[in-house]
C-alpha cells in the first residue's frame, strides 16, 4: 500500500501529451547545417551550463567575481608601467590607462571566449558520453560565460571614463555590434578548435601559443596603429582583431570608426562561425566514440 502511494507520488500520470515527436536515428551524414530549432529547444541547458561555469569559477575564492575586473586591471597596469613608461606607444589624445583598458577588455573577452570554448567539449566528456543534447550548446555556453566576465570588466571601464571625463559619442550605438562580431569570431574559432581538440589533444597546447602570438600581432590593444611604421601596418591589416579592437574603442570612447576594417572583420567573423559550426557538426557524431 505504502509502495503504491510512493509510486503514485513519483509518477504522476501523463497529462495532455504534447505533439508527437518522431526521431530518426541514421548513420552520420557528412555535412549538415546547424539545427537551430533544436538548439533553441535546449536553450535552458546552454544557459544552465554557462550559469554553472560562472558560479563554480568563483566559489571558494576571496575576490569572487572581482577576478573578472582584477585581471584586465592588472594587465592595464603592466602596460602603463612598462610600455607607456618607455614612450614607444601612443594613445593620441586619450589618457593611456583608459586607452589600453579599452583595448584589453575586448581582447581578453575574445581570448577567454575562444580558449574556453576550445577546451569546453573535452572538459565535458562525462556529459557527452552519457546523454544526448546538441553538442554546440557546450562551446556556446563557454562563450556566454566570457560575455558575463566582459560585462563585469565593463564596470571598471565606465568608472575610468567618468574619472577621466571621457564621454562616448554617437558611436556608442555601434558597441553591441562590434562586441557581437568579436563574439562571432571567438565562437567560430572556438568551436573549430573544440572539435579538433576532441580528435587531437595537441590543440590544448597550441591555444596558449596562439593567443600569445595573436596578442602581439594585435598592436591596437596597446598603441595607435596610425603611429606604427608602414611595414608593420600592412602586416596587421589582415588581422581582424586589429580593426575590431579599434572599433570597440571608438564606440566606447568616441573617435573615428574604422568602417572598412569593421566590414572586413565582420565578413571574417561570419566566415569563421560558418566554418567552425559546420566542421563541429561534421564530426560531433563521433565525439562520444573518440573523446
Amino acid at each position: 500500500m505504502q509502495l503504491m502511494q510512493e509510486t503514485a507520488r513519483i509518477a504522476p500520470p501523463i497529462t495532455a501529451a504534447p505533439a508527437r515527436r518522431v526521431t530518426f536515428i541514421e548513420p552520420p551524414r557528412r555535412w549538415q547545417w546547424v539545427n537551430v530549432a533544436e538548439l533553441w529547444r535546449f536553450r535552458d541547458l546552454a544557459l544552465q551550463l554557462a550559469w554553472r561555469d560562472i558560479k563554480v569559477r568563483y566559489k571558494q575564492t576571496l575576490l569572487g567575481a572581482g577576478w573578472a575586473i582584477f585581471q584586465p586591471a592588472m594587465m592595464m597596469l603592466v602596460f602603463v608601467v612598462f610600455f607607456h613608461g618607455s614612450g614607444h606607444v601612443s594613445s593620441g589624445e586619450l589618457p593611456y590607462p583608459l586607452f589600453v583598458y579599452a583595448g584589453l577588455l575586448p581582447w581578453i573577452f575574445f581570448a577567454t571566449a575562444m580558449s574556453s570554448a576550445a577546451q569546453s567539449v573535452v572538459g565535458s566528456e562525462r556529459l557527452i558520453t552519457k546523454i544526448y543534447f546538441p553538442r554546440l550548446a557546450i562551446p556556446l555556453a563557454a562563450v556566454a560565460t566570457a560575455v558575463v566576465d566582459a560585462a563585469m570588466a565593463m564596470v571598471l571601464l565606465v568608472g575610468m571614463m567618468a574619472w577621466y571625463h571621457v564621454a562616448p559619442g554617437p558611436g556608442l550605438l555601434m558597441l553591441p555590434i562590434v562586441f557581437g562580431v568579436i563574439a562571432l569570431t571567438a565562437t567560430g574559432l572556438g568551436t573549430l578548435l573544440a572539435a579538433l581538440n576532441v580528435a587531437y589533444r595537441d590543440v590544448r597546447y597550441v591555444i596558449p601559443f596562439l593567443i600569445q602570438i595573436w596578442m602581439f600581432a594585435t598592436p591596437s590593444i596597446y598603441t595607435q596603429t596610425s603611429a606604427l611604421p608602414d611595414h608593420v601596418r600592412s602586416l596587421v591589416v589582415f588581422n581582424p582583431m586589429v580593426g575590431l579592437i579599434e572599433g570597440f574603442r571608438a564606440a566606447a570612447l568616441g573617435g573615428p570608426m574604422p568602417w572598412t576594417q569593421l566590414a572586413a572583420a565582420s565578413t571574417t567573423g561570419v566566415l569563421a562561425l560558418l566554418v567552425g559550426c559546420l566542421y563541429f557538426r561534421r564530426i560531433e557524431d563521433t565525439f562520444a566514440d573518440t573523446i
Partner: protein
Amino acid sequence: MPPAIQVENLSKCYRVNHAVARPAYRTLRESLTGALASSVQRLRKGLKTTRHEPFWALDDLSFEVQPGEVLGVIGRNGSGKSTLLKILSRITKPTTGRARIDGRVGSLLEVGTGFHPELSGRENIFLNGSILGMSRPEIRRKFDEIVAFAEVEQFLDMPVKRYSSGMYVRLAFSVAAHLEPEILIVDEVLAVGDAAYQRRCIDRMSALAAEGRTVLFVSHNMDVIPRLCSRALFLEKGRKVAEGPAADVLRRYMGRQTADAPDAENLTGKVHIGDGRAQFTRISHVDADGKPMPVHACGDDLILRLEIRSDRDIRDVALSVVIQTLQGARLISSWTREVDYRVDLFKGVQIYQCHFQRVRLRPGRRVYVQLAMATHNLIDCVEDAQVIEVTDNWETRTLSTESTQGAVVCGYEWSKIAKPQAQHADPCLDQTVGQP
C-alpha cells in the same frame, strides 16, 4: 498505432586501434629517443591512413518495441547492449541501418549526470534537470516533489560535495525519477546504490510500465528482468539470439551460459604449479543433483567437482579447495586432512567432490576457486581454476551489492540497549555505548 521503437538492420562498427607492443624503456636516453621515434611515427601514421581493425559492436540488429511495452535487454559483457542504448539515446550514431523512435525520449545511462560537486543541491536540481531535457518551468513545477522525494530539504543550499553518498544518490535519482518521457531508456542504474535505493528504482520503473510508458531496460540482474519486463531481447556478439516473452528468453540465456560452461571448466589450459605427478583437468560447479550451475546464489550450498588425472598411483594425497576474492583474500577453505578424509589417487581419471554448506557470500561478488593437492611435495596447484559469480536469492535481495561491503554475509540485527549502566560498566564498554 506505430511501434514506439523500431530498429532496422542497425550496425555499429568501431575501429580498434591495435597498440603496438613497445619494448620497455631502460634508460632515460633510450626512453627519450623512443618517445621521439614513436611521436614521429605517430605523426607519419596520422598523415597516412592508420590500419585499424574493425569491430562490429552491433551487427544487423532489428526489433520493435510496442508502446507501453517494457523490453529487457540481456547479454553478457561486450554483447552490444550498451552500444544499442547509446545509439537509441542518440549519444553515438550507427554505422549502417536506422531506428525510428516515436515519442519523447528520456535516457538514464547514469544517475547524476552533470552534477557539480561545488554547486548546491538546489542548483544541481536545475542543472541536472535541464541536462535530462526538462524545461525550467517544468523543473520549477516539480521542484518540491523532487526535494521531498530525495529527503534533502535541510541541505538544499549546501554544496553537494558535502553530501553523504546516500544523499547524493537519492537526490540524483529523484531528479531522474521526475522525468516524464514517453519512452524511457535505462542502463544498469540499478547496479549502484544500496538495496533500498535499488528497490525504489525498480518500483519507479514498475510504476512507469503500469502507466503504459515504453521502457527499454538493460540489466545484469536476472532477478529483475522477469519481474519488470514483459518481453526480452537476448544479444550476443552484437546479434540477436532470441526475442520474446521475458521468461522464455531468460531461460535461453541461462541455458546458453551453462552450455558454454564446459570450456571454462577445462583446466588443461591453465597455469599449473607442482611436480605434475597428477593434475586437475576439470572443475565443475554443480547443484545437489549434479547439474551444472551458472552462478552461486547466496546462502545455497556450493558444490564443486574436481576431475583429476594421475600418471601413477599416489597414496594419501591431501586435496584443498580455497574460495578467495579477486584480491586474493582467502574467504573459505577446505582441506581433506582437516576432516580426516583419506584420498588415494589411482592411475587414470577420478572425480572428487567438495561440498560447502550454506555459503553466504556477498551477492554481486565474483570469487576465485583455487585448487591444490599435495603429499609432502606439491603435486598440482591451479590458482584461478574457476570464477564463480554470486547472485542474490529471494531472501537476500535486500542486501547491498556494493563492493565496499564485507565479502561474507550473515544474518544480523540491531537493537538499542535502553540505559548504559555508567557506574558499574566496564570502561571500554562505556565508550562504545556512548552518551544516551
